[in-house]
């Protein structure tokens, strides 16, 4: 009867029950949240470029904010949306919200309710900001609003005729915008805003995307894309810039900055993954070495 060999420690490590990995990831996420571990970030040039672009805009500039994402990418993208609105409101810009995703309107409303209305009570709907809402058609919508918003947007989300909205009086098409600041979780998103919006009108485009999408957009930076923010880390970098730039308003208050707070769990989760990768490879090489030795002894 053949004797069954008990697998070595290294071999067992290679086929570790995935529930152990799940447990470690869960702890890596829960512990920093429980102890409120926050990390300050240093801005990369791509993120700094967006911050500088907004700083350079004269007050009262028209900024289009297409929020093209949904709840699935909210943890990464909502902090970006909040930061953009905070920064733009501090600079007294006029905000035009719209979306190419059906879920985008609800996400817009979240930022408007939780940031704009709470922190900038002097901002008035129709005078300082307007919500145009969702229209189906993806990049087709961009193609149309290039020349005229009114073709697709006869009214805003509240049902007010677009011509009755004071801040829409001097706005016809995309060319009347000074900056397009998109936040995107997929298609249609930042890439379409560059190709069909920015390139056709010459209006600068910048924006934030999920970490997975960011590498796909690097070819457009810095030529067609003024700046790019990829994932939670970039959002945290932007929040750090805001805290530094507007220290009189924010000081060391990190409570309202979600990305900085979420970087703790992300950092620890990444470290756990790195640890598992290292352990997995050590186990792989060690068990490969031992199986070679076993093969040699059998040959002898």
């Amino acid at each position: 009867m053949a004797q069954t060999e008990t697998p070595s420690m290294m071999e067992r490590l290679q086929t570790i029950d995935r529930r152990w990995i799940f447990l470690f990831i869960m702890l890596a996420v829960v512990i920093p949240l429980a102890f409120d571990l926050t990390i300050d970030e240093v801005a990369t040039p791509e993120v700094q470029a967006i911050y500088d672009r907004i700083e350079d805009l004269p007050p009262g500039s028209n900024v289009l904010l297409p929020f093209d994402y949904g709840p699935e990418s909210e943890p990464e993208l909502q902090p970006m949306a909040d930061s953009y609105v905070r920064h733009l409101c501090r600079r007294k810009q006029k905000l035009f919200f719209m979306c190419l995703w059906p879920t985008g309107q609800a996400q817009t409303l979240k930022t408007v309710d939780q940031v704009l209305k709470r922190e900038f009570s002097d901002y008035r709907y129709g005078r300082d900001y307007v919500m145009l809402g969702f229209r189906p058609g993806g990049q087709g919508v961009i193609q149309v609003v290039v020349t005229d918003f009114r073709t697709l947007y006869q009214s805003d989300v509240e049902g007010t005729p677009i011509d009755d909205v004071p801040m829409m009086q001097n706005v016809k098409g995309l060319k009347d915008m000074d900056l397009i600041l998109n936040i995107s979780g997929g298609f249609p998103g930042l890439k379409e805003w560059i190709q069909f919006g920015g390139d056709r009108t010459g209006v600068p485009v910048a924006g934030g995307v999920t970490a997975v999408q960011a590498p796909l957009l690097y070819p457009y930076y810095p030529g067609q894309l003024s700046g790019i923010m990829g994932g939670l880390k970039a959002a945290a970098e932007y929040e750090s810039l805001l805290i530094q730039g507007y220290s009189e308003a924010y000081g060391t208050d990190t409570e309202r900055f979600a990305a900085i707070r979420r970087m703790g769990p992300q950092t620890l989760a990444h470290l756990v993954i790195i640890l598992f990768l290292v352990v997995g490879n050590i186990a792989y090489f060690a068990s490969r070495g031992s199986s070679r030795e076993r093969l040699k002894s059998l040959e002898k």
Partner: protein
Amino acid sequence: MRRQIPLLITFVVGVIMLFEAFIPHPPFDQLNESLSITFDVLAAFAFVLGGGNLAKIHLAKISRSEPGWGYSAVTMAGFFAMLAIGLFKLGGPSGVKHALEAEGSWFQAAYDYCFLPLSATTFSLLAFFVASASYRAFRAKNREATVLLIAALIILLGRTLVGTALTETLPGSLELMFGALLAYLAWEQYRSKRWIPLSLIGAVAAFVLARTLYGYLVLAGGGEFYLLTVPDLVNWIMVVPQLAGQRAIMIGICLGIISMSLRLILGVERSYLGSDND
């Protein structure tokens, strides 16, 4: 005629759109806008088509009591509930003119308390599966896998502050690792008796290691004697090799799109018309 007319429409529309890109003046720009509006109208109808198709598939599954029909029942309940809430704007201010997201509207409540947490929960599970999958898949089984593994580790480190901290607390650590990797590669060349690659790789390895050791011993770790930092390395990976790969893929895709568009406009590609038997 059933084939000629669609081919003619495709040709005319394709040529108009093509000309518009080069002649952004009337009447071409207006034609482009009109066609874009037509596309947006069709896109709106696609929602009806998509909803109808969804209902057809799931209702058929429920009526036949196929395995898993319970899931279909839940899908349909959610679908029709959201449809009714959205169409009749239930719960919000009276009248149908108010926004779907108006205060008190059931639509916004369903979004906030059902769709949002369910969607976020499903997506957050990815973190666990990615961790498990990367543990099993990221093995340095061959040269290509090793390069991928090293790049992944650097990016992972760079996506956290650990990368910066590593350079600050252990300056020169990256050079040491890089030097060790090169030394290993040089050793492999020595074993294979490939003298030219050995001398090249060996020289670089010796330079990197000697420079780092000089920094530690002579400068006693003081001063910026190191060349590499994790954030710099991450940035380099993103804007040089990654970007080169992305550009190559993008150019390839664009050439493919141009070729396919020409085939469609000229009527060479006819598969979108369906088969002759239809």
